[in-house]
């Protein structure tokens, strides 16, 4: 067993070495792998916005886009390889090793797959061709990309046609085979599929209608003339005559008798049996059973919610991996201790399915036996009887406000922290600081009615926006909650608003203070939530965590706002944790240029950990995002590498 572990370790070390060598080789072959540089895609976007571009410039931009995508894929593969190798060297279980091997294999296969970057490159090249600026090299690159695009489309069409044919959807298979032939006219298989689909799709030869029997005209006439009593008295034993009698009874209001007759006829073969079975399934009964099913489901979900909270209520009643995970997570000691509180507070599950069932019931059976219960449910959850009610006002149709969160084209407010205004790159910063007062941030908004808002003269506002744009590009101020590019676009939109004659005002802004008692109570009742404020309070995996930061923006950037901050060289936070087993831990964390140091104190003694972003410091993190984790405790010292890609580095 040890020998096997040693073998695995050796394999792991080899994988790490090979991956590192591959990463470094690629790094040496590429000239622009410097951290913090704008990505090639961004450069291409900037280039493309500057018109007019020559053919060579467009080719360069297209190549930059393609190279950027290829590098991204290689970086991802290198990281996975390194992480896999390290896990193997550490003696990872065979299942984990297999999973990682599959992941690596998948990424290797994806290296050759077509990407959205190729579409972008095609767009760039095609506009050069359209304006007669194509060079032979550009045309060659364009043809190559076009061929790859055609190949991908053809592959999709082949798969689509084959799968539709296998699923018996002949019309669809025929259509897809035609599209396949349009791309590949010589394909024998496509022609064969087209023919097979057409042949099998043909309607069955029509059956010869049976001769009309003597008694049929009388019965049919009675039905058509709506003389249902007369039709119901027709004494014939043929199945179709008995079906006609059942329908006559039904149409004359004798529903129970008709239903009994239809149920008996349901045992017949052929069309009579089929129709009888379809008609005997009373719609009224269907409505009742649907509502009862929704009610049972709601009851189960609520009971599970009382026991284990939101997560268990949402997926605890299924037979799935999610459900098993929900049970495992929800049955922690700290979560179960909240059960009496949930029961006492009569914690409620949000069940849109039940609301929908109640609305459907009242629409289809307003006098039904569950009508009062359905109406009471809707009243309790505050839902309208008609789900489309919110669009109606005294019989008139009025579109309500949309609930979908979309980005408006109107300029978004810009939030500048005190640190930004104190920056020397912002001219007139002192005047704005006076408007700031005690607030930690200033908000620039187009038009405002706030009493303490400071209207900015157009030229001052323009100067401020130009400073901000420059500072963002020089990285002397930093985005907070959005990317640098988004921030730059936001500043540009504000400039355009100024050009369009909008007035910009600056108003002091403060984050929400200490979390409201109600939201803390809610946090204790549910799981996986957090309450933002100057002190962050979070609960996840049964653990309660408090966090108070310093040296950085002390708020979450509000929605529909773009925030600009200035990161200090040194920032950090004080934190506390209450674990599921009751262990309390206190600590402090500080960071400097993406390195971080944390010190914790708990019952098991002090512990310090240091994270060193080696990849970032060596400026190779775009290829080898290597971090070293050093931990020191009473138990000893441990060093571990990690290969996480920095999200921020891509910015």
């Amino acid at each position, binding site marked *: 067993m040890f020998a096997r572990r040693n073998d695995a370790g050796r394999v792991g070390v080899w994988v790490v070495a090979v991956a590192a060598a591959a990463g470094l080789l690629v790094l040496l072959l590429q000239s622009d792998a410097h951290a913090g540089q704008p990505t090639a895609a961004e450069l291409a976007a900037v280039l493309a916005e500057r018109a007019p571009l020559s053919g060579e410039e467009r080719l360069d931009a297209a190549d930059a886009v393609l190279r950027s995508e290829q590098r991204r894929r290689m970086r991802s593969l290198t990281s996975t390889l390194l992480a896999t190798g390290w896990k193997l060297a550490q003696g990872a279980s065979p299942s984990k090793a297999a999973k990682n091997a599959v992941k690596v294999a998948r990424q290797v296969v994806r290296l050759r797959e077509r990407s959205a970057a190729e579409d972008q490159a095609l767009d760039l090249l095609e506009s050069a061709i359209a304006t007669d600026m194509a060079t032979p090299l550009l045309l060659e690159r364009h043809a190559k990309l076009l061929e790859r695009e055609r190949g991908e489309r053809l592959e999709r069409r082949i798969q689509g046609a084959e799968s539709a044919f296998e699923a018996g959807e002949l019309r669809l298979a025929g259509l897809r085979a035609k599209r396949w032939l349009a791309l590949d006219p010589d394909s024998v298989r496509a022609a064969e599929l087209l023919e097979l689909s057409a042949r099998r799709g043909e309607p069955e030869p029509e059956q*010869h209608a049976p001769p009309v029997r003597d008694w049929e*005209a009388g019965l049919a006439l009675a039905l058509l*003339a709506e003389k249902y009593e007369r039709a119901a008295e027709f004494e014939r034993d043929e199945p*179709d005559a008995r079906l006609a009698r059942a329908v006559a009874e039904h*149409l004359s209001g004798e529903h129970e008798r008709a239903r009994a007759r239809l149920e008996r006829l349901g045992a017949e073969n052929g069309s009579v049996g089929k129709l009888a079975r379809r008609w005997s399934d009373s719609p009224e009964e269907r409505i009742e059973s649907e509502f009862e099913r929704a009610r049972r489901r709601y009851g189960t979900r609520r009971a599970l919610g009382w026991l284990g909270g939101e997560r268990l209520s949402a997926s605890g009643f299924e037979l799935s991996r999610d459900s098993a995970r929900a049970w495992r997570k929800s049955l922690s000691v700290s979560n179960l201790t909240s059960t009496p509180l949930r029961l006492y507070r009569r914690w409620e599950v949000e069940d849109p399915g039940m609301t929908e069932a109640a609305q*459907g019931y009242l629409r289809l059976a307003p006098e039904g036996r569950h009508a009062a219960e359905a109406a009471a449910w809707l009243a309790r959850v505050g839902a309208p009887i008609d789900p489309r009610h919110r669009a109606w006002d005294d019989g008139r149709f009025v*579109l309500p406000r949309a609930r979908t969160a979309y980005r408006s084209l109107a300029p978004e407010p810009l939030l500048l922290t005190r640190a930004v205004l104190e920056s020397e790159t912002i001219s007139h910063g002192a005047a704005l600081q006076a408007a700031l007062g005690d607030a930690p941030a200033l908000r620039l908004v187009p038009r405002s009615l706030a009493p303490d808002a400071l209207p900015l003269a157009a030229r001052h506002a323009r100067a401020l926006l130009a400073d901000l744009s420059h500072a963002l590009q020089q990285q002397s101020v930093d985005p907070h909650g959005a990317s640098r590019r988004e921030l730059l676009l936001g500043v540009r939109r504000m400039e355009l608003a100024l050009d369009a004659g909008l007035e910009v005002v600056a108003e002091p802004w403060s984050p929400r203070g200490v979390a409201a008692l109600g939201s803390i109570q809610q946090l204790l009742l549910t799981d996986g939530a957090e309450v933002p404020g100057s002190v962050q309070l979070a609960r996840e995996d049964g653990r309660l965590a408090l966090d108070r930061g310093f040296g950085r923006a002390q708020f979450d950037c509000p929605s529909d706002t773009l925030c600009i901050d200035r990161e200090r060289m040194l920032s950090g936070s004080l934190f506390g944790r209450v674990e599921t087993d009751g262990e309390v831990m206190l600590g402090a964390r500080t960071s400097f240029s993406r390195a971080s140091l944390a010190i914790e104190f708990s019952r098991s003694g002090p512990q310090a950990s240091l994270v060193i972003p080696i990849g970032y410091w060596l400026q190779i993190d775009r290829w080898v995002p290597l971090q070293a984790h050093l931990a020191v405790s009473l138990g000893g010292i441990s060093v571990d590498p990690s290969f996480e890609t920095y999200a921020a580095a891509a910015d």
Partner: protein
Amino acid sequence: MRLPVAALLLPLLPLAACQTAGPPVAERPDHSLTLIVTELQMHLRDDTYRAFRARSGDGRDVFQQALSRLERLQSQRAVPQDQWGSVDIVIEYARARALERSRRYLEAMASYRRVAQVGSLVAGRAAEAVAVMTRFAEHSGPPAEPHASGEREIEWLDARVSGWDALARQLSGESYEPLALEELEAWSMLRVDALLRRRSAQEAIEAAQLLIERHRTSKLHARHLLRLGDLHAEAARREHLRSRVEQKALDTARYDGLLDGAFAAYELAGEERRPGLRAEAAKKIDALLAAQRRMVSDVR
């Protein structure tokens, strides 16, 4: 001693013969006149304006299916009208009813007229139906000649809509009311399209809102909401395009208002119970969000 396999199967031959031949034609009621009329009569009361038309087991409209079976029966009998017996009258009357529900009013009118001329238990009903079908046929069909202009087309559509509106009100509570309402709805939908083509997106939006108001109980209500969403999205797109072409600042308040209208309409349509429509509404919301994201990043 080894017997050939065929010899073992010999005793089963009579049984196999019975299986392939089936019951005599007269006892097979699958396409009998009784069955066709029974199924037709069961669905003639359906409110085809508020609910979707019933489908047969093979997915065809029950009225279309009844019509083709009745016509096959009629062609097999090949009895001239002057020699019609009660069976032929029943077939022709049932055919007229299927034609009327298939919205082929002129043919239905001719068919009812033949039944009324021959005389039977249903002659009186057929004569009444002739009067209704005549009015329906008057308001149906394409224009006599192509429209001279866009305004003429809209005037013609306005006349159609008001004609059907009046008919639907006159027939309120009768079995023909759902048909008249279906026609009114279809012509109103055409009018919305014509307004978008010939006048402006804003007028089309107003017409679509009126359509939704008038047809609140229609089975197509959610579909009208999707259309209203599309019209808002189209109007927003035009607004943006105009600002680019005319090189003037985009009226973001108006643009956002239109976009909000599109999202709100799609959301309302997404509250429909039918999963297909829900999925369609969700896809439209996603597509509009993607387009909007592109617009937001497309800053000059």
